[in-house]
């Protein structure tokens, strides 16, 4: 269900991915029961971090604005789960699940939200403008989709060194309109680099519906225009997202070149806290609320992987405990020291003493 129909013929040539059915199918895709419960847990943490963040914001503990990825938990966690330990990615402002899945500790995220010393950017940047490079993530900038050329550059490095690594770059359907998306896909496609493009298509760019951002049925239909495959997947189906991301990543790793995986969701909140999303039709919210990614996966786990009440409660409880202790720990983190403001504008040779730069 797309808001506003285009009154001309559309190209539709991306493959539309099937939903995931049985547990066996998932096992083949490489996830055992423990993995699945881990995925579920990561989705709970993801939403929990953003919900708590929202509370902290309303309490006045978070400066500036505040963004969440509600509705995108399956897409973010699903893709991140498919990444290998040495793969790298450039997640965006709806992709908290990527940070969580890669292992960023929630207390550091709360510290980031609050602009504290222990946030990944030590209070220098806000909200999800952060990343732990040791976990293979690169911190986003506001400008969209300006991280895509950087992600493609990572893929280029892997190709030059002939390493079996893949770079994953995220972008929104709105940002797909910008030149950076085009130049990135052109370089990745012409050189068949080990790159996977993930489009978080949540159907709105702030208040702007998709027909003013692109003129195809799917963003993924454009992949062919860059010499690679496009896939559209239901972004609320974490297992389908995982399967498609896994295929794309392993294809890239095997030298098969890039894939564009479009995860279709709806942004279930306003663009940011200040936005009530009045411009999103009620029935759209209602319809998409029916396929809440977490509730959907919870049901699947109960029906297909015999998740028990006690397992479910245990996970919920441990996540809650984690979140509370994380908020407390973050709140103990000091404010950054203004006397350090000028430090690190320029890197020193010592900064390069990292595994990467050996």
């Amino acid at each position: 269900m797309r808001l506003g129909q285009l009154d001309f013929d559309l190209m539709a040539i991306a493959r539309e991915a099937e939903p995931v059915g049985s547990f066996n199918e998932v096992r083949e895709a490489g996830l055992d029961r423990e993995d699945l419960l881990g995925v579920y847990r990561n989705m709970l943490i993801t939403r929990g971090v953003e919900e708590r963040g929202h509370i902290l914001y309303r309490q006045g503990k978070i400066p500036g604005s505040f963004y969440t990825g509600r509705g995108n938990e399956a897409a973010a966690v699903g893709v991140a789960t498919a990444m290998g330990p040495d793969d790298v990615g450039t997640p965006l402002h709806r992709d908290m699940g990527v940070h969580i899945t890669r292992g960023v500790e929630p207390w550091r995220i709360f510290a980031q939200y609050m602009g504290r010393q222990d946030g990944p950017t030590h209070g220098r940047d806000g909200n999800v403008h952060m990343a732990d490079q040791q976990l293979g993530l690169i911190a986003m900038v506001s400008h969209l989709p300006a991280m895509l050329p950087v992600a493609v550059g990572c893929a280029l490095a892997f190709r030059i060194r002939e390493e079996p690594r893949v770079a994953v770059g995220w972008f929104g359907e709105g940002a797909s309109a910008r030149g950076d998306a085009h130049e990135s896909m052109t370089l990745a496609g012409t050189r068949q680099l080990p790159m996977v493009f993930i489009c978080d298509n949540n159907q709105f760019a702030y208040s702007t519906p998709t027909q003013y951002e692109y003129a195809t049925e799917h963003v993924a239909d454009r992949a062919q225009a860059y010499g690679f495959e496009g896939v559209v997947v239901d972004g609320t189906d974490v297992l389908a997202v995982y399967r498609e991301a896994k295929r794309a990543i392993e294809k890239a790793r095997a030298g098969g070149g890039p894939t564009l995986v479009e995860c279709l969701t709806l942004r279930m909140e306003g663009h940011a806290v200040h936005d009530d999303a009045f411009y999103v039709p009620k029935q759209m919210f209602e319809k998409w609320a029916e396929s809440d990614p977490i509730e959907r996966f919870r049901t699947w786990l109960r029906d297909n992987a015999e998740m028990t009440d006690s397992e479910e409660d245990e996970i919920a409880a441990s996540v809650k405990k984690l979140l509370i202790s994380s908020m407390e720990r973050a709140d103990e983190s000091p404010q950054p020291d203004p006397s350090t403001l000028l430090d690190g504008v320029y890197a020193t040779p010592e900064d390069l003493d990292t595994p990467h730069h050996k």
Partner: protein
Amino acid sequence: MAELTYLQAISDGLRTEMRRDKRVFLIGEDVGVYGGAFKVSLGFQEEFGPWRVIDAPLAETAIVGGATGAAIMGLRPVAEMQFADFISCAWDHLVTIAAKQRWRAGTPVPIVVRLPSGGGFSGGPFHSQNPESSFAHIPGLKCVCPSTPEDAKGLLISAIEDPNPVLYFEHKHLYRRIKGEVPEERYTTPIGKARMHKEGSDISVITWGAMVYTAEEAAQQLDADGVSVEIVDLRTVMPWDKAAVLESARKTSKVLVLHEDTRTGGFGAEIAATIAEEAFEDLDAPVKRIAAPDTPVPFSPVLEKAFIPQVDDVVAGLRELASY
């Protein structure tokens, strides 16, 4: 006269011109149904229709470059950047085409680019910048930076009327904080003319945008010490009012140049260098510059406070000059 906020004055100016001149239209991200990220164009699409208030794709070069094409065809586009920071994505178009087309090919490019700029509310590195110096250096572009509601309206109308590409820097921190009397009728504020914000005799402060108010608070403290501070609000950074600045410098013989953008290569350097060269004989002290330090804009309030020039910093600078 009605009392309007700085933000309302911008809306008023834009609405006035759109009602008066069918050639004027607004294009930008979310300017239509949503009324723009800051609601400057709230209700405009209802009044002027979807082809004069255009929700553009997330594509700054298409927005500003498209404005240039429409301007060459005789329209009067006003392009809105959601934040001034994103104008970096159209920097190439502005410096390569918009700035040079008149001189090179005789083709005027009467466009206005609205740039919600400036910090003070934890916008972080990409929602707080003041990029005027990156454009003021480029021959062919004009840059205006109003600080009062009255000038915000008058300079916007002048910018739309102007036959050149005009970058209109609207300071976000003034949007709702600053109120003032604004004439209801249409009027213009001349581009290139400074405004005497406060007369004084001992030290001149040359500044613009939100720093006008920082300077004002600092000046009050020095008045208490019996030091009379003059504040010249540049209003236009390019072309800047050299005559007014030099006149003030010659009168007080001590000058502080103050801006919110970072120091090195900021536009204050041009002003300070010019004063030091052309008023050399009249100066009783070195021309002093106060600006943000050379770092990106920090997110954390404690860091941002250390970054953006504060009243105390200006007071200290003025005292230093007074006792020179």
